[in-house]
Structure formats: structure tokens, C-alpha cells
């Protein structure tokens, strides 16, 4: 079982439970198939209601989130298990990909285009879906369309990425090239 | 080619309209004033209820129907001066106190758990009675002299039938057990009893009479 560290341990701006975040992360890490000796750190900026998330490093595997990403949208400042699972699942699948040879060529997250981010997210979240984590498919296809175009080609690529396994970075790049080629200029 | 100067009948052979109608100008204005009054009370109630019903589909439908009945009130308001009633407020009145009591019963349900009662009063009692009164008027007024009223009645009836169906389907979707059946029937019976006492939306004679004159005995 992966070792999980959540910071801060105590929260003062929000009503989050670090132990609960750790518990969920540990279960997800096992299901994703991370090595048993992997260390996973979740760093939460509780002072922000915004929702940015990042896979900040691979050794240890570190996910940084702004507090809004884990927040229950209906009950402000309280923890949403579903949001934790959604974020951690997606980013741990990405971490697993980065640790695999097929993604050795993948640029750093900060150098990815929005299209590459979203395509890779789709690949990750599709696997979350098969792991039983109910990841709001319609929301994901809307994200994908925003970045890759509102076209039948984009929808087809989304389906392939969502249902895929064993992809490489080259496959992600090819998917982005395919949607880019079919893209209609906005407003045209 | 036909000779354009050749006289033709003013009423084409297929135009069977005749002059006589059951209502004179004053009676028509009286009825139209009552119609306007009830459409106003109805649209006000539907609008007021929107915020009190939790069921989202019902909430939206009430908002749409509110406008339709307001528009009917506007049609009637415009018709009144054309029927020699320049002070439209004078005739915008209920037909009698009993009808006021009926409308009070219709608008009495208020709480979030009373959507069924709200709908039953309107769609199983009031709107069917409006359809009846409007149909009676449409079929009995002069097809030549009172054409404008007939036009408005047809527009209104189109909405009434659509709204009746919408409301009935919503009611059927809300009635899920015997208790709901009883609630609906109880409220309907109460409201129906009150409108019978009032005689309809235009008072007694709203839909004419079904009395058959008793044949007089012939004596030597």
C-alpha cells in the first residue's frame, strides 16, 4: 500500500479532514497500480477557493491542489469525497503513465498545451470510469470539446481516448493532431 | 376571363354566416368583463404559485401558463371599449359573490406540499368551466356582428385546451397512490360545488340552459 502524506494536517480556513483525504488517496493509489513502496503527497492550499490541480513531482509523487478542487460545491468549505476521487484518480493515472517507458518523451506538465492536457486527462479519466469512480463523462466531453473543437472528429477521438488502455505519449500527440486537423476556426 | 363588373353575392355560396346571435352588445360586454376578471385572477394565482411549488416541471409550466391567461385578460380588456364600455374597470367584476368564494377556494392552497390541490382546482375545475363558457359563447353569438369576440374566443380556447392537457398530465403524474386520489377528488368536489353555486364563470347562464319547456296541456 502506498504511503500517503497530506498537508496541512490541520485546516483552519476549511473543514477538510486530512485523514479522510489520505484514506481515499491510498485506496485510489492501489487501484491505479502504483508500486507498493510509492510515496504520495497531497499538498492542499486551503486559502484558495479556486480549483487548480497539478502533478508537481514524481519522486515523491506530489499532487498540489487549490482547496476549491476538493470542496463540496453545495456545502462550501466542506470536503467532497467525489471531488477528491476525481482529482486524485486522474492525476495518479497520469503519474503512473509518466513512470512508464511509453511516456518517457512526454514534456513536463508546465510545457503541455491545453489540448495535450485535456487529451491525457480524458485517457486517465476513462480508466477512472472503468475503476468504478463515476467521473462525470458529460463534463469531460464538454472539457474535451472546448479544447479540441465541437466536431464529430473530436467526439470520435474522445471516445477512443476514454476507452483506451496501454497508450503512449505518441498516441496522445496523434490524437491532438487529428482533432487539430478537423478544427473549424471559431466564429467561422 | 370573368367580367370584373359582373355583380357577385356579398356572401359567397360557401359562407353560411347569419346575423342572429344570442347576445346583444350589453350582454356580450357583461360576459367579456367577467372573462377578463377571471383571467386576471387566474394569471395572478399561477404567477404567485410559481415560487411555492418545489416540482421543477410544474414551476416552469405555471410560469408559461401565467402569461397565456394574462394575454387573454389583455384581449378582453381591449374588447370592452369596442362594446361601448369605455371604463373597462366597471365591468371587470366577478359575476357574483359565490364566484369570489370559488376563486378564494382555488387560490387557498399555498404550501409546498399542496401542488396537487393547486393544479386540481385550476385544471380539473376552473379551466374546464372556462372552456365550457367560451365554447357556449362562441357557438351562440352572432357570427357576423360579434366576429371580434369570436376571434378572441378561438385564440383563448386554443390556449385553454393546451393548458388543460398540460395540467391534467401533471396531475396524473403527481397522483401515485390512493391517498393522492382522495386528496384530488376532495378538493375537486369542493371547488366544483362552489362553482355550481356561482353558475359558472359568467354566472347563471354561462353555458346556456338545458331546460326543455314543458309541453302545455291542450284542453278543449
Amino acid at each position, binding site marked *: 500500500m502506498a504511503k500517503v502524506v497530506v498537508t496541512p494536517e490541520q485546516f483552519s480556513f476549511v473543514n477538510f479532514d486530512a485523514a479522510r483525504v489520505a484514506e481515499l488517496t491510498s485506496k485510489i493509489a492501489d487501484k491505479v497500480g502504483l508500486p507498493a513502496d510509492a510515496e504520495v503527497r497531497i499538498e492542499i492550499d486551503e*486559502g*484558495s477557493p*479556486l480549483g487548480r490541480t497539478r502533478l508537481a513531482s514524481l519522486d515523491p509523487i506530489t499532487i498540489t491542489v487549490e482547496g476549491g478542487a476538493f470542496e463540496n460545491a*453545495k456545502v462550501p468549505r466542506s470536503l467532497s469525497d467525489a471531488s477528491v476521487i476525481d482529482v486524485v484518480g486522474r492525476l495518479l493515472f497520469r503519474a503512473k503513465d509518466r513512470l512508464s517507458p511509453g511516456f518517457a518523451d512526454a514534456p513536463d506538465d508546465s510545457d503541455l498545451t491545453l489540448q495535450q492536457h485535456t487529451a491525457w486527462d480524458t485517457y486517465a479519466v476513462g480508466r477512472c470510469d472503468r475503476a468504478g469512480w463515476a467521473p462525470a463523462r*458529460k463534463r469531460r466531453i*464538454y472539457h474535451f470539446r472546448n479544447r479540441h473543437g465541437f466536431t464529430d472528429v473530436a467526439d470520435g477521438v474522445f471516445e477512443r481516448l476514454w476507452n483506451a488502455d496501454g497508450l503512449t505519449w505518441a498516441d496522445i500527440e496523434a490524437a491532438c493532431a487529428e482533432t487539430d486537423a478537423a478544427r473549424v476556426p*471559431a466564429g467561422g | 376571363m370573368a367580367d370584373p363588373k359582373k355583380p357577385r353575392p356579398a356572401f359567397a355560396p360557401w359562407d353560411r354566416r347569419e346575423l342572429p346571435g344570442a347576445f346583444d352588445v350589453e350582454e356580450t360586454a357583461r360576459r367579456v368583463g367577467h372573462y377578463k376578471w377571471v383571467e386576471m385572477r387566474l394569471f395572478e394565482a399561477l404567477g404567485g*404559485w410559481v415560487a411555492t411549488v418545489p416540482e421543477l416541471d410544474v414551476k416552469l409550466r405555471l410560469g*408559461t401558463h401565467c402569461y397565456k391567461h394574462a394575454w387573454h385578460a389583455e384581449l378582453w380588456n381591449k374588447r370592452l371599449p369596442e362594446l361601448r364600455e369605455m371604463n373597462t374597470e366597471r365591468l371587470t367584476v366577478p359575476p357574483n359573490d359565490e364566484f369570489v368564494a370559488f376563486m378564494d377556494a382555488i387560490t387557498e392552497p399555498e404550501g409546498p406540499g399542496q401542488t396537487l390541490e393547486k393544479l386540481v382546482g385550476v385544471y380539473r375545475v376552473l379551466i374546464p368551466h372556462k372552456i365550457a363558457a367560451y365554447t357556449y359563447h362562441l357557438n351562440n353569438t352572432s357570427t357576423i356582428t360579434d366576429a371580434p369576440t369570436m376571434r378572441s374566443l378561438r385564440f383563448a380556447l386554443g390556449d385553454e385546451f393546451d393548458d388543460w392537457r398540460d395540467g391534467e398530465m401533471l396531475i396524473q403524474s403527481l397522483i401515485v397512490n390512493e391517498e393522492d386520489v382522495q386528496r384530488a377528488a376532495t378538493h375537486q368536489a369542493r371547488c366544483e360545488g362552489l362553482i355550481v353555486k356561482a353558475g359558472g364563470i359568467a354566472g347563471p347562464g354561462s353555458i346556456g340552459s338545458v331546460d326543455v319547456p314543458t309541453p302545455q296541456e291542450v284542453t278543449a
Partner: protein
Amino acid sequence: MKKILPPEELARDARFVRLSMEDRFNDRRGAGGTSGRTGPMKLTPDAPQAPDRARALMHGIFVGEIQALEGAGRTCWDFEVGPGADEVPFALKLDMARQCWDEARHCEISIKLSDWMGTELGEFAESTFLYEAACNPDPILRLTGVNRALEGLAIDVFNTMREFGQSAGDPVLEFCEDWMLADEVTHVKMGSDWLRRITENDPDRRERALEFQRIVDKLFSLGGFRGEGDDSPIRLARRFREMAGFTTEEVDEISDLSKQAGEEARARLAANA
């Protein structure tokens, strides 16, 4: 049925959760947190999390439409027809009924849009600030607060969302916002026209109404969220507001109020840091 329904009695099904104004405004977290990024960001397709921000904004619009529908409906019920200060002209009631229909349609559009964008109804908490502005017992203050201030904000928001839809290439979002925007111009114009007609011979009442509008406008400048700058998350839609009966001076005043609201919000953030 009673007159003037308080906001706590607004009826909702189990999907909806209400958030009080105190909850919303007393959140000690700043918009930028400890990361150093302060202030709201403009919603553009290449902005971080733009799709999720658009979804959240659209849900806010949806619950606002429900409240606008409820407010218009209550105005049909709450006031009798007449010339008194707590009465309204018959034609004003007809306009409110028309607004009921329009807002019901906007709810329907918003529901379909939510499905398109992958948002569940009730996914986000609801604030009842729009309906609260519609609770005023003076019908002219109510109309001014709702139809001029809040529906004016709706013009700004829908125009921004329409532009977002255009630049993102989202044909459904652009189409829907365009149609709703047309209706909102009508609603704001109704408010402008009735304010002028009813207060034509009552300058004190007009000034009270405009003051109430200013309060609502400033409150819902949302800490500088709305403005005229290119970087404003919600851009003041000057052209559509003028179509709806706002004078140039009135739009300038709203722009100034927005700037003030932004400066006050930044000062609060700095004080809390």
C-alpha cells in the same frame, strides 16, 4: 395565498441546497489564496479551467432564472391594480406575466445547456440574492432592483457568455445566450419604461428607486468582477444596456460603482493577507 413571500419559503426539490449571503461573503479565503494570484480572471477559452468556470457560471445563471421567474410571478400576485403607491397599472402586471413566460423559457434553455455542458441540476449551491431584491414591498423599487439592476447584470453576463461561446466555438452556448440576451434587453427596458412612467410626477420616489438600484448594482458588481476593461471577467455590455433604456450617464455610473467595488474588494484582501 399571502402577499410577499419571504425568500426562505422559496420551494425547491431535494437537489437544491441554499447558501446564505453571510456564508458567501464571509468566506475568509481570498480569491488568490496564498499563491499570490489575486483577483478574478477573464473567462476565455484558453483560461485555466475555463470549461468548469463556464459550467459554474451557467449553473448560477440557471438558479438566477428560477428566481427571476418566481419574482415576476410574485409581482403578478403581490400587487392589486390601481394608482396607489402599493398598486400597479394593469399593463405592468401584463408585462410581469410576459416576463414569467420568458424566464420559464430561460430556465428550460439553461436546463438543456446544463445537460450539454455536463452539469447536474443543483450541482452548485444556490444564493437567493436575486429573489431577495424582488421582495421589496414597493413595486417600483422591486422593478428597479430586479429589472434594471439584476437583469442589467444578466445582460452583461449573457453577453460575456455569448462571446465565450463564440470564441470557444461552442455553437450551442452561443445560440442559447444570444436568444436569452434578446429577452433580457426587453426586461430591462420594461423596468426603465415603468420607472419613468410611474415616477414621472414623483421625483422623490424615482430617486429612492434609483438609489436602491445603485445599492443592488454595487452589491452585484461582485467585488470588481464586472467592469469595462478587456480583462474584466464580466464585461459591462454598454450597447445592449443603452438599447434597454439606460442613458450613457447611468452606464457610466454603473462602471464607476464596479470600479469602487473592485477597489474595496482588493483592500479587503490586502487587509486579510
